[in-house]
Structures are given as C-alpha cells and as structure tokens.
C-alpha cells in the first residue's frame, strides 16, 4: 500500500450489451458509474437484481471491457484479463476433477509457486476455515458451505491486493451464512485486501463493509453511498444489536425498496410517488 492510488477506480463507466447475437437493440447495463475503493477498504455493492453489479466485477477482472469510461486497478487501466485481482464468483467454479487441496492450490500452480510452498500455504488456509480432514474430497463430496469456503480460500491463498466477491453466500442457509461471514471477516483481517463485495443481503453488507454503494435499477447508476462507521472487529453474530445498525438498515432498505417499486411501475415514464 505504498502508493496513494485507489485500489480500484471507476470513472464515468458505461456498459452496453447486445443480449443475443442477432438482437437489434443493445441494452444499457451501467450508466455513468464513478466510485473508488481505497487500499484495504471493504466496499459492498447492493441494488436490485440486473442492475449491473456482477458486470462491475467482470470489468475489474478484465473479463469484459467498458463501452465507455475508464476502469483502473492500482492506477493502471484494466485492459485484458486482470490476473492481479482475486475473483470469487457467484458459482463456486471448483474443478470437479480436483480434490479440495488441488483446487485450493490451483491459483498458486498457475502462478508458478513451487509444490512444497503450495502445499504449505493451501493447508494453512484450509486449516483456518476448518476443512482439515477433507483435503482429498472431491467437490461433489462436500457440502455447499464447504465448497464456498474452498472457493474463498482458493482465491485468498495467493494474496492479491484486490478481491472481488459476487454474492458468495447467496445459496447458503441462514446459519452457515453468518458463520461464513464471520470467517470472511477474520480472513480479510489477516491480509487486508480491498474487497468489492456484491450482495443482496443488507445485514451482511452492514456487518462486513466500510462503505456500501447502492445502485439504481437498470441501467445501473449509483443512487447513494453509505459509510459504515461501526467499530472493528465486529461481532457478526450480534451485529443487529450494535448501536447505529437499525438506522443504517432502515435507510438502506428505504433506498432499495424504492428501486424495487420503480421496477414495477406500470407505465414507462410515470412518476413514482
């Protein structure tokens, strides 16, 4: 963190898609998106589904290019696949033919880390998330929560300064979610990368973030930003008892509800009260 450049910077980013190969009309997914994520900052993106949150992460990962505007990582324009960030996708995307440890070592292997060090680092993080004893299980032999842990650890094990996470706890049951949120907070505090975290769970966003960015309906624009000034480390299990939580939650929910309501407006152009 020696430089003063933001870890990630969006500057007037637009993104248009053509939904199908022969569709005549492009659709606008992102409109004039500008924000930064500072080094070591945990930033959540929330907003109605289809508003372009995943697209933002794909832009930082260089898997897709902006139609207009600039996406920067550590002060450099992202062009082409960005191997300097970690990307934890919505699906766990584990290789089904590799054991847990084989999957966790994958990134280190691609990055040319020698085998003994690979083993050591993978094992250390597997231990942190309590998966020792399952190293040689294949993904289909693991529970949803275990696979999620594996996919998180697989990305954190090679220590990037920016980590992208796309609704990582979406399909999990309520108890597993909270446990994994607490584990994620611990893991994050070990090396303190910047995190861009997409979620639809407002409690989760408050519990984990330094800042929350609320998106509008498609085309996604930034509706508001919230600073989360709750002290760290946070007690994830009792976050809703923390002073200040309720006010923040209510404000966020009011914003989101307005967007969900707007999506169901019966007539195009009609004003929403």
């Amino acid at each position, binding site marked *: 963190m020696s430089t003063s450049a933001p870890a990630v910077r969006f500057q007037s980013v637009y993104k248009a898609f053509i939904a199908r190969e022969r569709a005549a009309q492009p659709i606008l997914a992102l409109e004039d998106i500008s924000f930064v994520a500072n080094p070591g900052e945990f930033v959540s993106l929330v907003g109605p589904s289809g508003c372009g949150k995943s697209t933002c992460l794909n832009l930082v990962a*260089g*898997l897709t290019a902006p139609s207009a505007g600039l996406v920067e990582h550590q002060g450099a324009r992202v062009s082409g696949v960005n191997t300097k*960030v970690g*990307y934890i996708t919505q*699906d766990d995307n584990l290789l*089904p*033919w590799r054991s847990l440890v084989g999957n966790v070592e*994958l990134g280190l292997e*691609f990055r040319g880390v020698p085998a003994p060090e690979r083993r050591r680092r993978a094992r250390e993080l597997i231990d942190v998330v309590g998966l020792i004893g399952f190293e040689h299980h294949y993904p*289909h032999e693991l529970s949803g929560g275990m696979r999620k842990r594996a996919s998180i650890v697989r990305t954190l094990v090679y220590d990037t300064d920016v980590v992208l996470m796309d609704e990582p706890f979406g399909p999990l049951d309520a108890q597993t979610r909270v446990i994994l949120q607490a584990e994620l907070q611990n893991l994050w505090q070990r090396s303190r990368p910047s995190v861009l975290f997409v979620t639809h769970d407002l409690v989760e966003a408050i519990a984990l973030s330094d800042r929350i960015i609320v998106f509008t309906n498609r085309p996604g624009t930034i509706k508001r930003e919230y600073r989360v000034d709750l002290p760290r480390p946070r007690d994830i299990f009792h976050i809703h008892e923390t002073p200040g939580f309720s006010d923040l939650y209510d404000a966020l929910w009011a914003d989101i509800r307005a967007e969900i309501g707007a999506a169901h407006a019966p007539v195009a152009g009609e004003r929403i009260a």
Partner: protein
Amino acid sequence: MGLGNGARVTAVGERIALPRPPADAAVRVLEDTLTRRQATLRARRRTVWLARLGILVGVIVAWELSSGTLVRTFFVSRPEAVAARLVEWTLNGDLFWHGQFTLTATFIGYMVGALAAILLAWPLGLMPRAYRVAEPYILLAYSIPAVALGPVFILWFGLELLPKIILAAYFVFFVVFINTVAGFRQVPRGLIDVSLVMGASRAALFRTVILPSAVPYVLAALRATLPAAMIGAVVGEFIASNRGLGYLASAAASEYETDGVIAAAFVMAVIVLALTVLLRPLGRVTRWQRGVDVSEGSL
C-alpha cells in the same frame, strides 16, 4: 417456572436435561440398516439374473416349438442345428481361423478411427469458428450410409484386410469425433474465466481445465463405439471376402443354410458383448463425475 408438577413449558433460556439414549442403540440401528441394504441389493441382483436367464430360455423354447410348426424350419432353422454348427466350427477350427481376421480388422479399425477422430476434434473443438466452417461437411460425410461406401472402399483398397479396417474405422470415427468436439465445447465458461483470472496460461488452461473436462465425453464415446467397429469389419467381409466371420455368415446365406447364418451372428454378438464388458473399467477412470451420456447420432 420449574420442572416440577410435570410442567412441559420452560422459561426462555432454561435448559432441560434429557436422559441420554442407550449407547449401543444407534450402533445397532446403523448395523441393521447396512445389513438390510446389502440383502436388498443381493436380492435385486438375483432377480435381474433370473429374469435374464428366463428370457433366454423362453426365446429358445419358443424358437424350438415354432420351428416346423408356425414357421418353416428352412427360414429359422432350429436351436439344436445352430448349436451343432457352433460345435462343428469350434472343433474344426473354423471359428478361430475366421474370427482372427474379424478381430484384427475390428481392433485396428477401432484404434485408427478413434485416434483420427480425437486428433481432428482437438483443434476443431477449441476453435469455434473453424468448427462452424467444417460442420456442414462433417455432417454431410456422416450422413452417407457406410454400407453404401463398402463397395467403393473395396474398389480403392482391394480385397484384403485394408478395406475392412477402413470400414471399421469409419463406423467409429464420427461418434468419437462428435463427442470429443462436444467435450471440448461444453467446458463451463465460469471455469475458464476463473482460471484465466487466476493467471492460467493458454497451455495451463488446456491441460488443467479443458482436457480433463472433455475426457469423460471421449471415454463414453470410446466405450460406445467398440461394437460399431466390429459391425464395420463384418460389413466389409460381407461385401467381398473369403474369410472372417462376416464371410462365414454370407457364405452360409448364399447356400441357404440358415443355421450357419444364425451361428455366425451369435458368435459376433457374444464377441461384442465380451468386448463391451472388457471396456467397462474405462468409465471408472473418472470417479469424480457421475456419468456422461454419449450421443450416438443416427448409429
């Protein structure tokens, strides 16, 4: 509120101590479940084999009863005549002498066809645009009935082993080719993207993601096409040959010896069955996945 007076409702947060279940009860339940499951599986296996045997006996009995009564023996022969023919061929060595040619053509044709299919599918599966260019021609070639090509192959490649090998290879080629291409093309986009962001080079991506993902498709096709290879070899022998199991069958047919035709067909069926069982372990190479269905096209 206490637990006295048989009260079942407790204050919030109060702990109710329940007696522990007897220690060995759970173990017994687990053991019983296992024993019962094993018994069920054994019974099911026995039923399947009995049913199979029943069908075989039924067919032979029906055949025996109808031959000479419902249908003229000339058309369907009789079980004992076919059995006699099999014994005769075994004792005079015809079975092994002819069998070796068919098996040789089957094996070489299978290898050649499968190898050619994989080597061609490899680049085409990885290059979607090249595949789109080639696709109509491949489908065109696939839609030519191989039997119609037989005489042409004989013309080009002579009367010996070569045209049989090529016919066998032809029967194998397309199924392996189509499935290998499908294997390369079905790799989930997410796996590729995630690997690229993790820093995979092109070579590493191919080795660690694309190839393993395609392997089950290739193996399923290899397993499914072995019988096809033998059909190809036999078709070649039918068209022009003086040896091989196909020749045995066609020679018997030209003499109107139905028992010989049935006996030869029976031998081929048994060989295909044995080869299929032999190849079964191929499927177990990939124990991380739960089976891929091979698409066999029009074969």
